[in-house]
C-alpha cells in the first residue's frame, strides 16, 4: 500500500566503523515518507547505529567513522558541508531512556523552537508548545502544571514529553531508538498509539527489540543481523512470509 509513496530517505552502501569494529556493513535502504519503518534485530546488530547515521548523531562519537551516502529528499547528508545542527532540526530523535531536561515542562518543549528561532513572540511560543504537547498526547495531563519540572513526570509521561519536544521543532523525519523499552505496558500502548498518529505528518523510523511492537506500529520492517541488513519489506510480509532463513529464525525465536 505504500509502494507508490515518495521515498524520504535513501541510504546507499552505508558502512560504519567504531574504531576497528565494522558495525554496519554495506546497508542500502529506501525509507518512505509518511510511513512507520521498524528496524528489528538482536542486540548489537547495528540497528541503533544505523538510526544514528540518519541524523549524524555518530558525529558526536570520536571513534565512529561513516562511509556511503544517505540522501534525505535527494540531499546527501553525509557531505561534510552539511551542518549537522541544521540537519537535526529536520530529523528529530527520541531516545531509549526518557531524557527530559532539568527544566519546566514548558521549557522542555520550548527548547527546540527557541534555539531555532521558530517563535516571534511569547504567544507564538505558547501556541507552538501547546500544539506540540497535544501532538505528544500529553497536553491534557500537563496543561495545568506547565511550570513544573519535566523530570517530575512518570516514565511514560516523560517519554511522551520527549516526543512532544522532538515534534516541536517541526521535523520531517522522526527517529525513535527503542522508545518504549523503559516503559510499562500501559505507557507503551499510549506511545504506540501516538506513533501511529505521527505517521500522518512524518516519516517515522523506529528501532525496537519487540517484534510484536514492530508488527503493531510499522508498515515496513527491516531486519538487521550482525551489521547486515538481511531483509527489508512490508511488515506483514516479513512477519508472515520471510524470504531469508535468518529472518525466519529470528522471528520464530531461534536466534537473537
Amino acid at each position, binding site marked *: 500500500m505504500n509502494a507508490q509513496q515518495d521515498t524520504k530517505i535513501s541510504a546507499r552502501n552505508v558502512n560504519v566503523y567504531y574504531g576497528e569494529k565494522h558495525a554496519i556493513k554495506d546497508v542500502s535502504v529506501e525509507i518512505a515518507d509518511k510511513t512507520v519503518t521498524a528496524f528489528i534485530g538482536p542486540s548489537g546488530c547495528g540497528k541503533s547505529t544505523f538510526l544514528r547515521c540518519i*541524523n549524524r*548523531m555518530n558525529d*558526536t562519537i*570520536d571513534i565512529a567513522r561513516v562511509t556511503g551516502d544517505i540522501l534525505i529528499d535527494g540531499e546527501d547528508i553525509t557531505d561534510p558541508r552539511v551542518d549537522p*545542527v*541544521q*540537519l*537535526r*532540526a*529536520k530529523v*528529530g*530523535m527520541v*531516545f531509549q*531512556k526518557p*531524557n*527530559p*531536561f*532539568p*527544566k519546566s515542562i514548558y521549557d522542555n518543549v520550548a*527548547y*527546540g523552537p527557541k*534555539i*531555532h528561532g521558530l517563535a516571534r513572540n511569547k504567544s507564538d511560543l505558547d501556541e507552538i508548545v501547546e500544539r506540540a504537547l497535544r501532538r505528544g498526547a500529553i497536553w491534557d495531563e500537563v496543561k495545568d502544571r506547565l511550570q513544573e*519540572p519535566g*523530570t*517530575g513526570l512518570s516514565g511514560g509521561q516523560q517519554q511522551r514529553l*520527549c516526543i512532544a*519536544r*522532538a515534534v516541536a*521543532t517541526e521535523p520531517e523525519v522522526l527517529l525513535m531508538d527503542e522508545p518504549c523499552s523503559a516503559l510499562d505496558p500501559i505507557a507503551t500502548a499510549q506511545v504506540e498509539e501516538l506513533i501511529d498518529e505521527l505517521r500522518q505528518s512524518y516519516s517515522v523510523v523506529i528501532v525496537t527489540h519487540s517484534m510484536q511492537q514492530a508488527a503493531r506500529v510499522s508498515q515496513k520492517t527491516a531486519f538487521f543481523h550482525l551489521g547486515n541488513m538481511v531483509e527489508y519489506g512490508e511488515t506483514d510480509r516479513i512477519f508472515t512470509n520471510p524470504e531469508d532463513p535468518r529472518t525466519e529464525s529470528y522471528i520464530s525465536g531461534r536466534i537473537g
Partner: protein
Amino acid sequence: MSLTLPLLVIIVLAIVGSFLARRRALSVSGGDIRHLASLPKQHGLNAILSTVVPPLLAIIAWLMAARIMEYRGAAPLWVPLAIMALAVAGVVLSVVKVSNTFRARTASETWIKGLLIGASTIAILTTVGIVFSMLFETISFFRQYPWTEFFFSTNWSPNFRGNSDLGIIPLLWGTLYISFIALAFAVPTGLFAAIYLSEYAGPRIRGIVKPAIEILAGIPTIVYGLFALTTVGPFLRDYFAQPMGFGDSASSVMTAGLVMGIMLIPFVSSLSDDIINAVPQSMRDGSLGLGATKSETIRQVVVPAALPGIVGAVLLAASRAIGETMIVVLGAGAAARISLNPFEAMTTVTVKIVSQLTGDTDFASPETLVAFALGLTLFVITLGLNVLALYIVRRYREQYE
C-alpha cells in the same frame, strides 16, 4: 602509677585474647568450622574489640573526670587497676562466650558500629568545642567593650594603652572586597576551565591539564603571598595603579584578590568538572538531537543541570576566600580602611586576629579579646555561607531528580 602499663596490658591481652578465641572456636567446633555460627576469625575480632574498646573508653572518661575535678598529678592506684581489670574481663568474657551458637560476627559488628558513631561524634563535638571556646572569650570581650561600637563603628585603631576603637566594619569591608575580587576572577576562570576540560578536551589533554590545574591547590598560601608581594603587587602598581592615577601602593585589594583568585581556581574547576561530568550523556544527546549546537547544549542544558553543584563549589571557594590570611598580609597590607579604590591597601578580619594576638598579650584587655569576637563573627559568616550552600544544593536536587 602511670597509664603506660595499662595500655601495654591492653595490647598484649588483645593479641592473646584473639589467639585464644580462635583456638577455642576451632576446638568447640570439633575441627569442622561449619558447626560454628561465626568463623574463628570473627571470634578473634570480637575478642580484640571487647578487650580494647571498654578500657580505652575508661581511660578517656578518667582523663575528662580528672580535668573537671581539677585533679593534678598521677592517677591514684585504683585507676590503672580498674582499667586493667576491664581489659581482663573483656578477654575472659569473649573467650568464655565462644561456642557453636554464639554469633561473634554480629557482636563484633556492633562494636564497629559503635566506633564509627564515635568517630562522627568527635567531628561534631570538636565544632561545638570551637564555638564554645570562642564564645566565652567573646562574652568577656563584650563585658569590657560595647557591642554597638564593635559592630557599627567604622574605625579600627587598637591602642594597647587603652581607649581603642575596635569597629569591625573596616575589616569586614576589606574581607568582603578582597573575597569579591577573588571570586570574580576565580569563578569564571575556573568554570570555563571545567567546561573546557569536561566537554571539549580530549582524554590526552585532559590527562595533562587537570592535574596541572590541581597543582595550584597544593601550593602553600604563604608562597602565593610571596608571589603577590614580589610580582603581582609591583606589576599592578607600575602598569595600572600609577599610570591611571589610582595611587602608588604595591599592597592593594586588587593584588590580594587576584592572587587569591588564582588560588581558588582549582577549587572551582575541579569540583565543577566532576559535577559537569556527572550530567548524564543522555541530556547532551537529547539537546544535540534537537539541533542545538554544542555551546547551546552546554549553556542551556549541561550547566543548568550542574548548577546546584557549581553553586556549592563557588560557596566553598567563598568560605576559603573569607578565611584566607597569608595572601592578604603579604598582598593587601595591614591597614584597616574603607575605600572603593581597589588599588589601595586594606586588610581583613583574619589578618587583624593574628596581629591582635601576636606579641606581648594578656587575655584580659579588650584589645586582645577582640580577636575572639572577630573569629566568632567570621565563623558565623562562613557557617551561614555553608548552610546557604547546602540549602541551595538540596532545593535543586528535590526539584530535578
